[in-house]
Each structure stands twice: as C-alpha cells, then as structure tokens.
C-alpha cells in the first residue's frame, strides 16, 4: 500500500488546488462586475492617488537581503551536517565549526554597520 511519498505530496497539491480553486473562480460568475473608475481606484483613504505606486522602494534594507541569501546557504549546509552529527566522529565536525567561525567575520561586519549607521 506504500505509495511513493513524493507522489502522495503531488496528489495532495492537486487536491488542494482542485478544492480551493473554485472558491476563487466561481465568484467570478455570479458576482456583479461593473467597471467603475471610482470604485477601481486604489485605496488611499479617500484621496485621489498621485504618482507611481511602485516607486517608493526602501533601499536602506537591501544589505539585510544580501545577508539573507548568504545565511540561507549556510543554514542548508548546517542542516546537512546536523542530521548526521551523531553518526560521524567528533573530529569530522571541526571543519563545520571552523566554517561557522569564519562566517562570524562578515556577520560581525554587517552587524557593526547595522548598529553604527542609523539608516539600516
């Protein structure tokens, strides 16, 4: 009776899409749809929207995104090591600890920047 678990995951995804999709598509049929420039206007507390909506970007947090990419990779490496930590001899874990230790330098620099500068 054992189905391949990945196949079960795919069936589960299909079931979810098949059962929630109608919630989105069916209202399209019965809901009244009358285009009206005032109702379709973006919400700005009753004001008429001015300017481009997609241009107010906060540049100041960009470095955090860069750190996120780096530590995403590090996290995945640590998981691969962590699940076999009890199965490998202890000395084999030293490179990983060295790996973490080496990463402390950019982390420290980034946090130093983050704490010293008020802008990010």
């Amino acid at each position: 009776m054992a189905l391949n678990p990945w196949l079960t995951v795919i069936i589960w995804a299909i079931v979810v899409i098949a059962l929630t999709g109608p919630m989105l598509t069916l209202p399209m049929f019965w809901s009244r749809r009358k285009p009206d420039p005032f109702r379709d206007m973006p919400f700005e507390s009753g004001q008429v929207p001015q300017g481009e909506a997609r241009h107010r970007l906060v540049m100041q947090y960009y470095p955090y995104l860069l750190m996120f990419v780096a530590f995403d990779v590090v996290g995945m490496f640590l998981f691969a090591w962590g699940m076999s930590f009890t199965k490998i001899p202890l000395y084999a874990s030293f490179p990983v600890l060295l790996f973490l230790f080496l990463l402390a330098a950019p982390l420290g620099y980034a946090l130093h920047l983050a704490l010293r500068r008020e802008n990010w």
Partner: protein
Amino acid sequence: MEIAIPPDLVFVILAAVTLIAAVLALQAKELIYGAIALGISFIGIAGFFVFLDAPYLAMLQIAVYVGAVVVLILFTIMLVRREQSDELLDRPEGGQGAVGLWLAGLLAVAIAGVAALAGPNLPAAPPAGNLPVSSLGLVLAAEYPIPLVILALLISAALLGALVLAKVEK
C-alpha cells in the same frame, strides 16, 4: 492503492515546464514576469532532483534559489526598473539575434547529439533508494573538509564585497 503513473510522462511534463519557463525568463517583455518564470524554471529543476533521488538537493534548490535569489532579483528589478525602457533594451540589434540563436542551437544540438550517440553505452539506472539523505551530510562533513572551509571563505568574501558595494553612501 497503487496507481501506475508512467515516469516518462512526468519527466516530459517537467522538462516542458522547465524549458518553456527558461525561455520565458529571457524573452518575457516585463522583467518581473521574467523573474517569476525563472523561479518556475528553478522549481522544475528541483522536480528533476526529486526524480534523481536527491530530495535534499531539491529542497536546497527551492529554499536558496526560489526563496532567496529570486526574491533578491525581484527586489533589485523593482529598484532599477523604469517604465517602458526594459523592452527596448532587450531587442537584439540587426543580425545579432540570429547569430546568437545559431550559436546556441549549434552547441545544444552538438551536445545532445553526443549524448544521444553515446546513449546505448551509458549505464542503466541502478534501483532507487541507494542514496539515503543522511549520507549526504556524512560525506559533506567527513570527506570534504577542505572545500567546506574554502566555501566559508568564499561566502565571507562575497558577503563582505556585496555589503560594501551596497552600502548607502551619504
């Protein structure tokens, strides 16, 4: 319940999704759509990794590429985006498009041809389940310590460089 789904069918669907999304990533008019198509292409590759008995790599692919790199790309696109200029920028000049197409097509056909010619001599697949997930961590930590340390240096250097580049100048 046992439902026999031919693996070839799943493979063909995956390949079609991956390749079409990769083409769209380069050809979509709007850069944002291109980035989304790139993400879908990465997810297709993750599907191939599941097929190839490497589920951990598939999860790594989704978490790192789709969850982090595509987010960064989208954010950068929103920072540098300007209305209408993207499309003009990507239209090939003169015969450039044709030359590029020829070059790429020739290369791809040559490699695929070699692969197809070598096909009968290539090994058939051993039964699945020979690659338990935990063996990856075992090999990673126990057999490749030096690359791990070099990778730490690489990540440190890249992160420091990127941080210095992206520092807000006053």
